[in-house]
């Protein structure tokens, strides 16, 4: 497929066409926080960003969402499902976050049982990824298997070459998104392709300096849980769950009811395996009573159980979990472990 390019000055035209067809979510800064938000007419995305503070997953798996509603009527309870899915474009997502969708796609389709709320949204979503100009400090996408210049799961990939973006169309869905504003695109010239390739090479060279060793993730996770450093780590954990809420692949949730006026809503919201009450049962039994069991679950799910069950690593190297209030850096800890011969 021919590579295209779009001048930055023509981007508003394309976004306008996309917005006429779909809800467009792009990075914006709000109250000092960069996140994906739905663009209203006239809104400009903020594309000169490092990475969003909150992960891309919240577009497709919101922090809270209503699953069903019920009403008490003279004929009895009426229960209805809620479907807020709509044609959606994700614009300008970083390759790590796009790769995170792959883990969630597999998790939400696990066992052949589809989570309709995820699947309906995901199937209506076109993902336009934007290659990072430079790495954010602390990110290590390639170490976690992320393709930083053409991520799996993207329909279109944009690479910044100064006054324009070189455009890689990766799917029919991506082609349809480009076709909406075909006059905004031109064929990329040889020099544009060279500029894009060089931008990618520069990025990968800079990322290589931030690389950490996550080879043999399962053996590494097990070795870490036997290492002296492990005691220091779990003893420090506050069980606050910030790492999970910021993680592009964490998908644990709680379901609870809210009643009002003869009816109500069933809501699901993010939950975390770090929480003390996450596995606590009404009778008092708790399968993971201390931070040690809970953080073990986190480490093993990311680096062993998840990869075994879903076929992909539960980490995409975005580095957001390094915002831990007590400076727990699991990936860095894991990278420092000496991995013995796999048993």
């Amino acid at each position, binding site marked *: 497929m021919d590579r295209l390019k779009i001048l930055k000055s023509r981007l508003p035209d394309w976004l306008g066409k996309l917005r006429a067809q779909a809800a467009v979510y792009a990075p914006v800064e709000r109250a000092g926080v960069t996140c994906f938000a739905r663009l209203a007419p006239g809104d400009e995305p903020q594309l000169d960003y490092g990475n969003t503070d909150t992960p891309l997953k919240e577009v497709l798996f919101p922090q809270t969402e209503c699953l*069903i509603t019920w009403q008490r009527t003279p004929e009895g*309870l009426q229960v209805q499902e809620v479907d807020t899915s709509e044609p959606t474009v994700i614009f300008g997502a970083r390759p790590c976050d796009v790769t995170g969708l792959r883990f969630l796609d597999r998790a939400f389709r696990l066992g052949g049982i589809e*989570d*309709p709320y995820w699947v309906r949204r995901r199937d209506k979503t076109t993902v336009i990824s934007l290659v990072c100009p430079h790495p954010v400090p602390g990110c290590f996408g390639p170490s976690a298997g992320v393709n930083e210049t053409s991520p799996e799961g993207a329909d279109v990939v944009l690479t910044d070459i100064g006054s324009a973006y070189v455009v890689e169309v990766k799917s029919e869905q991506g082609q349809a998104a480009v076709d909406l504003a075909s006059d905004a695109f031109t064929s990329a010239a040889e020099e544009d392709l060279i500029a894009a390739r060089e931008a990618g090479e520069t990025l990968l060279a800079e990322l290589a300096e931030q690389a950490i060793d996550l080879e043999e993730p399962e053996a590494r996770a097990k070795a870490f849980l036997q290492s002296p450093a492990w005691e220091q780590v779990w003893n420090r954990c506050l069980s606050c769950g910030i790492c999970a809420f910021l993680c592009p692949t964490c*998908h644990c949730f709680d379901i609870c009811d809210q009643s009002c006026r003869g009816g109500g809503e*069933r809501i699901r919201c993010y939950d975390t395996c770090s929480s003390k009450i996450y596995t606590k*049962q*009404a009778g008092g039994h708790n399968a993971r009573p201390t931070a040690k069991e809970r953080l073990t679950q986190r480490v093993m*799910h990311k680096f062993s159980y998840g990869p075994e069950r879903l076929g992909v690593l539960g980490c995409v190297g975005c580095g957001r979990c390094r915002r831990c209030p007590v400076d727990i850096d699991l990936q860095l800890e894991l990278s420092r472990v000496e991995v013995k011969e796999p048993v």
Partner: protein
Amino acid sequence: MKNPYLPHVAVIQDIRDEGPGLKSFDLAFRDGSVWEEFRPQPGQFVELSVFGEGEAPFGVATGAHETGLLRLSIQQVGRLTKMLHSMAPGDEVGVRGPFGNGWPLEAAKGKNLILIGGGIGMPPVRSALVSAMAEKDQYESISLFYGARSPEHITYADEIEQWIASDDAKINVTVDVGDDTWPGHVGVITTLLEDEHASPANAVTMTCGPPIMIHFVIPTLTKLGFSDDQIIVSLEARMKCGIGKCGRCNLGAEYICLDGPVFSYDHLQTMGIRL
């Protein structure tokens, strides 16, 4: 797209006291045609909605041959169960499921089936017991080992009398603490298994009960000569979704709600799970 989060509305038909803080609820789907596709297998569980309080998972007590009514026997321990215990016949609840794999009864045919239940783990054991007794000729023998906290805590007391009278299964009951009215065995379930000389010959055991009971039953069975693959246990967790998404019941690379709740002990051993 079929929505596994959407509960079927069910109407409480009957409520029976089963002991202190324990009631059995017989539920019928408001839309009677739901039962045909629902048909819980012994050992499966459902997510029960008490609208306004939420959902919680409960093992089904209904046997495979008992059609039309879903029986759940529920201890009052938390908010949802408190609300449920205040409900009356005619009240409506929601039911999702059935979820999980259920007891491997087919594989147990031709063998001595040993069912072990403790406390509120008894409902799924009942589902296996009455299902097996309905096809008793297909088993070498059927026996139940049941441990309750005290005589008044014995669940399904009336039915147990009938089961004993029917002679379809060997019924052994023990209580942790006896009283003047109790003529039977006293002691925790492991003492009952030892005193009755539960035998591993051509046998398979299926156990459901609180974690602490399973923790002690497994070494007792091992001591009695049962191999790990003759020990089948049903596990529980605070499952919210029932379909392997919410994460609570993750056990190694598996999910209790999807791959269980019934596991063979040798499989759990290969996963490195200790009970």
